[in-house]
């Protein structure tokens, strides 16, 4: 198993095919990252929503408790 290119710029160029190969690599990595990051962000949003629901319900409970 040997490194197939003379140097890093040779690997970037890939004898003229570099533009195709690296475009495919970048788009793939970007989409993979997005598919992981998106649910993590959504999770944070849902947890925030639920926490707000809980504190709103507690406020309401406290208010009704005082009026009795």
């Amino acid at each position, binding site marked *: *198993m*040997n*490194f*197939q*290119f003379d140097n890093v710029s040779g*690997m970037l160029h*890939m*004898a*003229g*095919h*570099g533009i*195709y*190969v690296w*475009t*495919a*690599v970048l*788009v*793939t990595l970007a*989409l*993979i990252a*997005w*598919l*992981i990051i*998106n*649910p*993590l962000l*959504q*999770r944070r949003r*849902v*947890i925030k*929503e*639920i*926490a707000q*629901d*809980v504190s709103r319900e507690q406020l309401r409970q406290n208010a009704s408790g005082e009026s009795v």
Partner: protein
Amino acid sequence: MNWNWFYRMGSPRWFYESTSRWLPWFGALTVLLLVSGLVWGLAFAPQDAKQGNSFRIIYLHVPASFLALAGYFLMAAAGAIGLIWKMKLSYMVMKCAAPLGAVLTFLALFTGAVWGKPTWGSYWVWDARVTSMLILLFLYMGVLALQYAFDSKDVANKASAILALVGTVNIPIIYKSVDWWFTLHQPATIRFTEAPSMHPDMFQPLLVMILGFYCFYAVALILSVRVEILSRERKTSWVRSLVKQATHNSLGAE
């Protein structure tokens, strides 16, 4: 026979809690496999005698296509289980598999297009394999669209599941398209019944990438099913206490 395990597996809480334990391991394995497979395939695998370096796109194109197809089976199976046993969790898996599969199918088409340009001289051809993959993309988008087309969650789930099941007819067509029709697309590199038509030096990194994509798929699907569970089960006490803990931790960290 004791069916308790089956019903326990259908419990969103059980799914959430057990995946909490597995996720870090799966995540680490995914990164390890994808990084090593990519470096191996892009820098160390020998170049193809006919296609030169453009063939290196295979290390993205084949795994993405594999998961686009396997993901469709998973989605359809989850839909069928939902229809038969009315399992909530199963429908959640189906719903989350649809956008994930659509992105992977798009990726298979995109990497195919940038591979096609230097190899076939064109980004796009209306070839049997390419066209049937495009239909797969529309099927995924159809399942996703039906989720938002009905006010009733139950009707939406049933409609999505039926479309997913009907669409499975496309899967063997995609798989066999390169044999049934005269196509530009090259025949399958990996077959279940024969040895791979590829030199081991090229094949081993491909295998690593396929495994890496399977692990990535599992992680991405589990992450989005977990969000779906939190959102749907927001009234339950276990989600409430989990949220309490999570907000407490984040306040402590700030």
